[in-house]
């Protein structure tokens, strides 16, 4: 009843092709953005900013990046953690060696460094597919892990191998405190989510999806596999590298290569699969599921007032979390984004379903 498009006539091509063709969607998204920028900074607690919202937003960005590669272009990658590390260490070295560089420029350049590395490791995708490509990207992960742990130059010869980010200042605006960090990350994520959304519905996104659905057919209709696959790797690595830089600089502050190990790659892949392959919204839903749910489960006994030993809580957390992943994959193999879409379809007919 509320969610109905009756009477919304589209008389121009622009109106038909806009980002959110349904008025209610537009209003809702704008409200949420306004809420995130305007209201959240006054409502949320420090814990919420530091431990939940900031990591959730950063990992959402990484999940969008991975979704472009896996969900839209169909190239399975297990090297996401490694590409995040490239972004993080590139940002560290740029900030260290060019201290006068604007921090936003540093982040973008770090993303570009990850792009170069991503393209390099993406080139084999022209010859190898499926599981074999997954193994090749896994090799990238291990190589990058090794490089950042062993090559002293990347860490400025830090004796412990742990490096820390410089103070964050953007054009005199000091990014200190949880709220400013949240706003910085939120701003960056908004901009790049918009970029991603527009990329995937444009010509380049269509060529990725054509490659994903059937590469031979795509080639027949004139899509160059080299171009489509390499651009997917490039764009994906840029997003992932940027999020790596944010993860290191804004969230962790000090980090070691272990922060970007193969577990991070798996975590991001789970986000994309659970959230929904080939969906920008799914990247956010998946990130929320993977980031927030374990923490919520871990604190559940405390909220309910149940006394439980720390070890037991951790075991229960792992078991329930695993069971929920299985549950959601059985209920909706296409991910949380698909559940959301089904809900919307039902809502359009409500209260008179036919």
């Amino acid at each position, binding site marked *: 009843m509320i969610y109905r498009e009756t009477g919304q006539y589209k008389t121009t091509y622009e109106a038909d092709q806009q*980002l959110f*063709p*349904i008025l209610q*969607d537009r209003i*809702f*998204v704008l409200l*949420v953005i306004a*809420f*995130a920028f305007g209201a*959240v900074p006054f*409502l*949320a*607690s*420090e*814990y*919420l900013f*530091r*431990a*939940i*919202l900031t*990591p*959730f937003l950063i990992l959402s960005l990484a999940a969008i990046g991975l979704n472009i590669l896996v969900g839209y272009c169909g190239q399975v990658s297990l090297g996401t953690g490694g590409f995040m590390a490239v972004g993080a260490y590139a940002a560290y070295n740029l900030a*260290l060696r060019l201290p006068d560089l604007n921090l936003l420029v540093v982040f973008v350049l770090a993303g570009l460094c990850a792009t170069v590395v991503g393209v390099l490791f993406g080139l084999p995708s022209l010859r190898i597919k499926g599981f074999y490509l997954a193994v090749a990207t896994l090799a990238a992960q291990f190589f990058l892990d090794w490089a950042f*742990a062993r090559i002293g130059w990347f860490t400025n010869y830090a*004796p*412990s*191998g*742990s490096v*820390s980010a410089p*103070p964050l200042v953007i054009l005199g605006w000091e990014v*200190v405190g949880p709220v400013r960090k949240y706003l910085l990350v939120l701003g960056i994520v908004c901009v790049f989510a918009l970029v991603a959304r527009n990329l995937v519905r444009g010509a380049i996104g269509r060529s990725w999806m054509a490659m994903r659905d059937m590469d031979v057919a795509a080639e027949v209709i004139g899509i160059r596999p080299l171009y489509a696959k390499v651009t997917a790797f490039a764009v994906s690595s840029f997003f992932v590298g940027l999020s790596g830089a944010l993860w290191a600089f804004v*969230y*962790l*502050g*000090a*980090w*070691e290569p*272990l*922060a970007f190990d193969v577990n991070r790659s798996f975590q991001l892949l789970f986000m994309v699969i659970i959230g929904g392959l080939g*969906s920008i*919204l799914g*990247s*956010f839903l998946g990130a*929320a599921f993977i980031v*927030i749910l374990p*923490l*919520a489960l*871990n*604190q559940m006994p405390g*909220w309910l007032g149940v006394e439980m*030993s*720390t*070890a037991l809580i*951790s*075991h229960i957390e*792992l078991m329930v979390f695993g069971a929920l992943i299985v549950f959601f994959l059985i209920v909706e193999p296409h991910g949380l984004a698909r559940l*959301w*879409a089904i809900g*919307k*379809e039902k809502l359009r007919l409500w209260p008179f379903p036919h």
Partner: protein
Amino acid sequence: MKHTWKWKAAAAALALAGGIGAAQDALAQSKEIFVPVLVYRTGAYAPNGAPWADGFVDYLKLVNARDGGVNGVKIAYEECETGYATDRGVECYERLKSKKPVAVNPLSTGITFALTEKVANDKIVLMTTGYGRADSVDGSVFAWNFPFLGTYWDAADMLVQEVAKKGNLKGKKIALVYHDSPYGKEPIPVLEALAKQKGFTLVKLPVTHPGVEQKATWLQVRQQRPDYVFLWGWGVMNSTAIKEAIAVSYPRLQMYGVWWSGAEPDVLPAEMAAKGYNAITMGHSAEKDRPVHKDMLKFLYDKGQGTAAKKEEVGSVLYNRGMISAMMLVESIKSAQSKYGKRVMTGEEVRWGAEHLNLDAAKIKAIGFEGMVQPVKTSCMDHGGAHRGRIHTWDGKEWSYTSDMLEANQKFLRPMIEASAKKYAQEKHITPRDCSKEK
């Protein structure tokens, strides 16, 4: 499919998380001193993390039960499971921060690195008893870090001193089998400097987390035949290393662990074959008969209030270390109370207390830790307070001391500490405090 966007997801997440924040704040307390306890009772590091956590929590319980708190102020605490993962540790810290803690013991060098910057802003003391950044001994730069009772640089120096007693090290070869993390890498600069000074070769053999796969590492040990192996491991890595050493028949007598690689869970899996394995201690071993242990049994375990599953755990190496870590915290609070009055302390006051600790042998005896803790005297210049240890050796059944007391050579280490701290201060734009003006 309809065009939707992320903000719906964000809103749902926010609603859920909003509940978390509210629940957090409601719990804030004011009449007790709050101490967060970051532990790991699950995962690859649990065999070592659990006894430490039991000891730490038990000592806080004991102080509350026996003495009615610290000078009458009770200690409240809450455990949070980190699994030895840095990001989970940071989350735990943020979660428990709202309860106004005075000090935090992360029991992980990785988490220590991540928290070092945060604690200064939040005014929470970061106590790293026997671990953490070695350069944080320099309190002029690291005002909030307290690596009590010895750093990894101390341990590395003392281990080299010990093996040097067995013959000139010139031309000898020492292999460092280390956990490939900030923890394992921490001693490398000191060992490299000592290698140059004393003329031995250092072979660095990293083991990736969690350390259950070490076949290749020990094949290298067999190839290179080092005269000594220093083990810088943690959790399952230790027991695996000892088993692998047995498999390549590397003599255990020539193996020396750091104090985190010298407890019962490390040697017990290999049973008798681990006989002869050495480790440096942080001044204590598996003492079980001190007054504090008797109190522990009397006030907690006889009443069924102990944290450990079995009371045999009381007095094991890591249990003792957990107890000592908690003791250092309690003594810091006492020291702060002696200046500011017997009430609930703030983080800043406890920081002053930790910087002005003075535990002589008599005082240590009075609190029931006789012979387990070396006299501690901290200052702005020296946040460690004590830099001594001795070797203990596993005889197949228990640990026993096999060396005299060793003392880390501060003349050698101090310039390195200051150089490293200075570099950190420059990177972070910190102006070091003038220690001569601190009272």
